[in-house]
């Protein structure tokens, strides 16, 4: 059976995760967040929802950092925006790691970014934070 592709409706939505060193984030979180917001918005993106996702010990050291703070952002942008964001994030000294993913059209953008999507409850019903 031939698959029929439907035409895209409007600009795509993306999910971006940025990793910052915890020491830097705790010192001046507002400045760090403003830097990352600026980084996203410079590419012509409209932020739908954003916020601090978590602060935790890293699985491995990145540029000497042992702890990291994650900033999660959902945005709407033209197709060339993710590449622009990736390029600027790599050059940024504040951001240790960044990842931009295309959000599925069926998925809804959570207003509270700290709510994690429960993939599946293995064993018992776990309540995700």
């Amino acid at each position, binding site marked *: 059976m031939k698959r029929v592709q439907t035409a895209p409706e409007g600009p795509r939505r993306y999910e971006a*995760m940025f*990793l910052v060193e915890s020491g830097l984030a705790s010192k001046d979180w507002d400045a760090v967040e403003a830097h990352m917001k600026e980084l996203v918005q410079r590419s012509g993106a409209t932020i739908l929802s954003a916020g601090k996702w978590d602060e935790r010990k890293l*699985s491995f050291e990145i540029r000497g950092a042992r702890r990291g703070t994650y900033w999660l952002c959902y945005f709407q942008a033209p197709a060339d925006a993710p590449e622009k964001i990736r390029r600027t994030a790599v050059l940024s000294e504040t951001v240790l790691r960044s990842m931009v993913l295309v959000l599925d059209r*069926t998925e809804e953008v959570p207003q509270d970014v700290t709510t994690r999507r429960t993939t599946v409850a293995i064993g018992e019903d776990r309540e*995700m934070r």
Partner: protein
Amino acid sequence: MAGDFKKFEKTGCRFCKVKTHIIDYKDTPTLTKLTTGQGKLFSRKRSGNCARHQRQMKTAVKRARFLSLMPYVAQ
């Protein structure tokens, strides 16, 4: 003897059971259960996942590793 065979319960894909469409890379507690203590991915035979969800799980784990949410190699 034909009647002596044990009836094995079919163990289906755990993601199919709850009708999951997307496996989230941020859900590390679930992903950790699908990796060995060393941090390697479980095979389909071991995890019981269907092909589609095994592929999704593989991608999710690799994304989690890139962001240092999960280790490439645990010590």
